[in-house]
């Protein structure tokens, strides 16, 4: 049999990106391993713990808020044609195009002291840049639900709302959930907008920057490693859980 050289060739080109992403992760982790003491010390620093807690709580709150508002919006976008729909659709994608420092400025100009240096501000900044993931994933999830299934459920006696909760949402769940996970991940990785809107209460992302500016690369490394470890663990765990429910419903 002839080998498919095209695929091998493409794989060797494509592996550049895989290595490019994996390498810094490996390097920072291995470097920190050789400085175990510093890592443990950082973990006992109440200032760091406080910042980590802030990051995790605000990112989780952001994901929940995005779900609350994004899932209904995604359903409407999937099911209804209305004038101005493409405008709404474009608007939803806008946060991806705007530099995040600009997002921070925009939010501050609009909501000013109401969000300045508060948890509300952190969540506001996170929500702005990360909500599109939940909205778009929900819309795609609902688009993949056969409308005939909803029609049958209605003829069997279910109201539209009932159909949504007993049929559409469960079927679209894996898609909605992965959207929420992406929102969470995007939220916890946000710095630019938070830096401008809410430098305090301090989040771990901002703390890394502060340590880097004040004490240099070596000082900022342990918190970075902790942040990587926590984010990745939660991300992988959630994705695995969603993948499991997806398989179970097949």
């Amino acid at each position: 049999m002839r080998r498919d050289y095209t695929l091998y060739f493409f794989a060797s080109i494509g592996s550049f990106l895989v290595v490019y992403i994996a390498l810094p992760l490996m390097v920072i982790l291995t470097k920190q391993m050789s400085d175990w003491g510093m890592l443990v010390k950082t973990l006992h620093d109440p200032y760091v713990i406080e910042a980590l807690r802030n990051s995790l709580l605000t990112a989780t709150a952001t994901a929940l808020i995005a779900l609350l508002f994004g899932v209904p919006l995604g359903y409407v976008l999937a099911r209804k044609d209305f004038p101005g729909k493409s405008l709404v659709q474009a608007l939803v994608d806008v946060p991806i195009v705007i530099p995040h420092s600009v997002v921070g400025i925009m939010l501050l100009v609009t909501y000013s002291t109401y969000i300045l240096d508060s948890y509300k501000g952190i969540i506001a900044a996170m929500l702005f840049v990360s909500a599109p993931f939940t909205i778009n994933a929900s819309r795609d999830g609902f688009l993949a639900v056969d409308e005939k299934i909803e029609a049958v459920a209605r003829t069997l006696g279910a109201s539209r709302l009932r159909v949504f909760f007993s049929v559409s949402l469960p079927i679209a769940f894996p898609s909605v959930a992965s959207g929420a996970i992406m929102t969470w991940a995007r939220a916890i990785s946000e710095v630019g907008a938070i830096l401008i809107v809410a430098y305090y209460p301090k989040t771990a992302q901002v703390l890394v920057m502060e340590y880097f500016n004040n004490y240099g690369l070596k000082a900022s490394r342990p918190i970075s490693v902790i942040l990587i470890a926590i984010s990745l663990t939660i991300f992988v765990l959630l994705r695995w859980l969603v993948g499991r429910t997806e398989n179970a419903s097949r």
Partner: protein
Amino acid sequence: MLRVEGISKDWKEFRLRGISFDVGEGEHFIILGPSGAGKTVLLEIIAGIIEPDAGKIVLSGEDITYFPPERRGLAYIPQNYALFPNMSVFDNIAFGLKLRGVPRSEIERKVRETAGILGIDHLLRRKPKTLSGGESQRVAIARALVIEPPLILLDEPFANLDVQTRAKLLGEMKRWKRELGFTALHVTHSFEEAVSLGDRVGVMLDGRLVQVGPVRDVFSRPASEEVARFLGFENIIEGTAEGRVLRSNGVEIELPAETMGRVRVGLRPEDIILSLEPIRSSARNEFKAIVESVEELGPLVRVHLRIGGLNLRAFITRSSMLEMGITKGKELYVGFKASALHVF
């Protein structure tokens, strides 16, 4: 029981025009039409999923035209069955009962009873994705019938099944109907389903319901040329009738009854007899013909014939074709009974 009055609707590429018919209690009413005639749109209007532009739908004396689907109580079975993939077979069937607040033990009993009749009681724990086409169809029917709806709406229920499963389920459908006694409005393009299941049939062409009647009447006496063509009268002969004789392109054909003036008659290709020699038979019409071409259709062959200025198509089996040596340009004799002719 169900009365549809003058339903019209423009929907995507479909145009329904003034559709009226009624379905009686316990009846199996078939809407027969080629794909693209708008049959599914009509079913979804009756189910309440699409709103009509004009017309009325009356169920048991009540005008339900603008009722939402959940208030109509009709059970709809779409062509792809649309089972709920997130639920087990049991929960699929129980869905309508749960919504009606039926007590748990009663749900359990009814689901098992219906599943038993439909022969799917061993599948109740399974997920829809693991079922075969025939099994899925049974589950969809069970889910519809368990709520004992006044009417079930079936959209091409046998179209996605292989030939053997279809034949088996067609037979069983009659049994389920006897045992459960439901009323059905059944949309299909298959003559086989219409003939074997239908009490009455409505022929739908291009968004219009062109003929409604008992199955035998519609098939034996199509009301118009287009119905005849759709139902398989491939030969439509146009000419001038004088008493029992029809003159068409210089050919004289004997008619089953006396008529006058310009008429069209239909003749099914399977009603034409081909022979190599002139034969003495009870067939009143016999002509010399030339084979224009031969079209192989598997076990059957469609022979295109020319009699003077007249073109006819006949079906014969493949083995007859070989035995008689029928090829292009061959001369032979064509016979058919006057009673096989249908005058429109």
